């Protein structure tokens, strides 16, 4: 890591990025968006969020050479990497960004040209396509020095990171989290702790930094706090009307995914929480006329986020709960300085996708009660097997047990070539009829 690169990074971090943010901000002020009669007033925080994420992607360009760079899966225990000062890039978050900007098919096809099958997870195809072609709406992503992958969300990430590792000849560290077919077992935790012990020397070698226990403790503390604050942010949706919707939460999720363990994420969620509590006090809802409350199952359909938030809001429907946004609040608060590694193993292996479907069923039942949910939208995602296999039965069982109305729609989160507007509309309209809205 050269001094010049470090200096450049620091300069950009302290001066370049803020200047850019200021510039964007002043440009934006000139054209305020028209308020929509069905949606509540926009969150004041949204600007800050944009700033944080733009800065994150902007700064990443200068990180190469100044800091060790790691590409990390969304469920990886990034707290450990933070000890070694890695600049972390989240390809899944980048995939979502490409999806939201409707760039999915274009970048995916860069991977397909190399022989990657269009049936494969589109986050992986976007990432590989980006790796091959450099295409991204985020300017430029730094090439990693390390690939860090946890299979607690799926095995797909393992196959995908293996490809990157081979293609670039870059070390890959796998954090293997045994699937909890039933309850988690002591030996699973031991295994995961052993893996942490094995990876520390590797991380030291790659980063050139020594492991510092004090630093780790501090990071764990921040991560836990951020996750619980995020949890409280989500819990505000228990109020009627909910001050925020899941569609907003999909967007405000970015810092807890990408910047977990950094003070900036914690600060952000504190501000957001304050704003939401204020809204609750004043009775301001995300949807002007909240009549029925919905739950979402699966990842967001990024290219439809805006359209759909309107479509549902027009009918007084608000999404107040989702298993997806919940995932980053669910277990990270297990982190505990008294047993840092064991607790980290637990926190990361107990996430919803690494648990049995029975667990998921119970979790959803609980959420439906806690959030007073009236209807369920199940998104069947062809990209994501672990999230989607079992949804038909899940739907049936929730219907039988709670009498909840639901609909299954088919799509992909970014690749809209696999999406049919007409078909989806028909299904949603039938659902609206069933909900009598």
């Amino acid at each position, binding site marked *: 890591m050269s001094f010049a690169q470090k200096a450049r990074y620091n300069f950009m971090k302290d001066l370049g990025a803020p200047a850019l943010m200021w510039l964007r901000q002043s440009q934006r002020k000139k054209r305020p968006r028209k308020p929509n009669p069905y949606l509540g007033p926009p969150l004041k925080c949204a600007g800050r969020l944009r700033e944080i994420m733009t800065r994150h992607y902007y700064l990443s360009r200068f990180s190469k050479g100044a800091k060790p760079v790691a590409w990390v899966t969304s469920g990886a225990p990034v707290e450990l990497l933070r000890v070694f000062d890695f600049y972390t890039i989240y390809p899944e978050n980048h995939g979502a960004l490409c999806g939201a900007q409707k760039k999915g098919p274009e970048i995916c096809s860069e991977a397909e040209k*190399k*022989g*990657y*099958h269009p*049936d*494969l*997870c589109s986050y*992986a195809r976007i990432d590989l396509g980006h790796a091959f072609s450099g295409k991204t709406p985020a300017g430029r992503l730094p090439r990693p020095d390390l690939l860090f992958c946890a*299979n607690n969300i*799926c*095995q*797909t990430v*393992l*196959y*995908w990171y*293996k*490809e990157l*590792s*081979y*293609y670039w000849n870059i070390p*890959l560290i*796998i*954090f*293997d989290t*045994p*699937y909890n*077919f*039933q309850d988690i*077992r002591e*030996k699973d935790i*031991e*295994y995961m702790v*052993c*893996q942490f*012990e*094995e990876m520390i020397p590797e991380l030291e070698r790659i980063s050139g930094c020594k492991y510092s226990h004090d630093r780790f403790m501090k990071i764990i503390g921040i991560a836990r706090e951020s996750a619980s604050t995020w949890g409280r942010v989500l819990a505000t949706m228990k109020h009627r009307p909910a001050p925020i919707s899941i569609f907003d939460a999909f967007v405000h999720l970015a810092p807890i995914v990408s910047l977990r363990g950094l003070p900036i994420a914690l600060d952000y969620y504190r501000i957001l929480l304050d704003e939401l509590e204020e809204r609750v006090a004043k009775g301001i809802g995300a949807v002007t006329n909240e009549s029925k409350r919905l739950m979402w199952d699966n990842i967001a359909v990024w290219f439809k986020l805006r359209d759909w938030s309107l479509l549902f809001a027009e009918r007084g429907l608000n999404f107040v709960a989702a298993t997806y946004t919940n995932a980053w609040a669910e277990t990270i608060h297990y982190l505990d300085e008294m047993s840092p590694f064991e607790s980290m193993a637990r926190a990361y292996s107990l996430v919803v996708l690494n648990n*049995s*479907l*029975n667990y998921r*069923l119970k979790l959803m039942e609980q959420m439906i009660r806690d959030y007073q949910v009236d209807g369920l939208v199940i998104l*069947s995602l*062809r990209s994501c*097997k*672990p999230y*989607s*296999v*079992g*949804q*038909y*039965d*899940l739907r049936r*069982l929730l219907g039988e047990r709670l009498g909840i109305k639901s609909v299954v729609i*088919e799509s992909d989160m970014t690749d809209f070539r696999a999406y049919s507007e007409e078909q989806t509309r028909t299904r949603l309209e039938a659902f609206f009829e069933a909900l009598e809205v």
Partner: protein
Amino acid sequence: MTKTQMTRKDYLLDQKQKGRHIFGVFPAQYPKELLWAMNVVPAEIWDPPVEITAANAHLQPYICSVVRFGLELVLEGKCDFLDGFLFPHTCDSIQNMASVIHDYIGANKPCYFFYHPKNPHGKAAREYYVLELKNLMRSLEKQLGPLNPDALKQRIQQGHKISSLFGEFYDLRAKGELDVGNGEFYEQIRRGEYLFPDDLIPELEGFLARNKGKGEKRLMPVILSGVLPNPPEILTLFDELGVRVSHDDLLIGSRRLLVPPSNLKDPFKQLAESYFSMPPCSTKGAPIVKRREYLLSLIKATGAKGVIFNVVKFCEPEWFDVPNLTDELKKRGTPTLVLDTELNQGLSGQMKTRVEAFVEMIS
């Protein structure tokens, strides 16, 4: 009646009569020897000949057909005579199907789950594997009574014997000294998916004795990669075109069958050592380099003229590996053909054309 003449179902029922426990085992990697030692006959479920109807109410159309066929078999009640299920943690789809059966549909019989490490590089993984074996043993003991340590040793010996027999199969095949059709070859290989070792060993020995010798008419050696040799019509087509599968990198084939023996004392450590020295497999997180080297070594050893990747549609572990593998092989002068297959659907005209064109190309 010999074991081979019996249908698979009859054989399993006969075994049950003899007091053995029959387990339905889903793909792919699991400790057979341990099951044998507990008097369990593992009957593997890959591509049963059923029509997928009931499973469509549980699985989306973008799930691979191995999983769909497996669930169909369960739903149709064709597994009712089994004494238990074992689900190895092969991929996301199997993982969730296991949970669907166990948690949502209800299997009405004991369900076991076997997690094999996906981070095959460190000591932690080896230790974990041993613990996972013991864990499986303890859970099985609750149903089936205590494990006899000598039985385990004996079954491990039989396991070695079977691997070496399969090793001979492949060696002879490579040299063109096993004069049977491609279909017959794999039929024999796949008997290992349900025969108990006491029957499998004589069966394989008999087959070798009958068919060993020169005179192979299929002159074009190719390597077959992928999950399994289905549709079977593809093997017949190979016969017609004079193609001999000279070796394979199939999940049901060499990736599982060629298990190097271990000399360690402790039987569990022995199983672990063998497991970690098996050929590289995508479902165990093997790095691409290893798989590439393995394929290259097979090409070299058998003089194969090309590699055919017969990949099950929607199979994530395999499809991710395909582009880099084909690319590397082509760079080194070995032509490759990639087929996207649905199981038990026969050969479409297009698939036939692809295979024939490939053979014309390498001829």
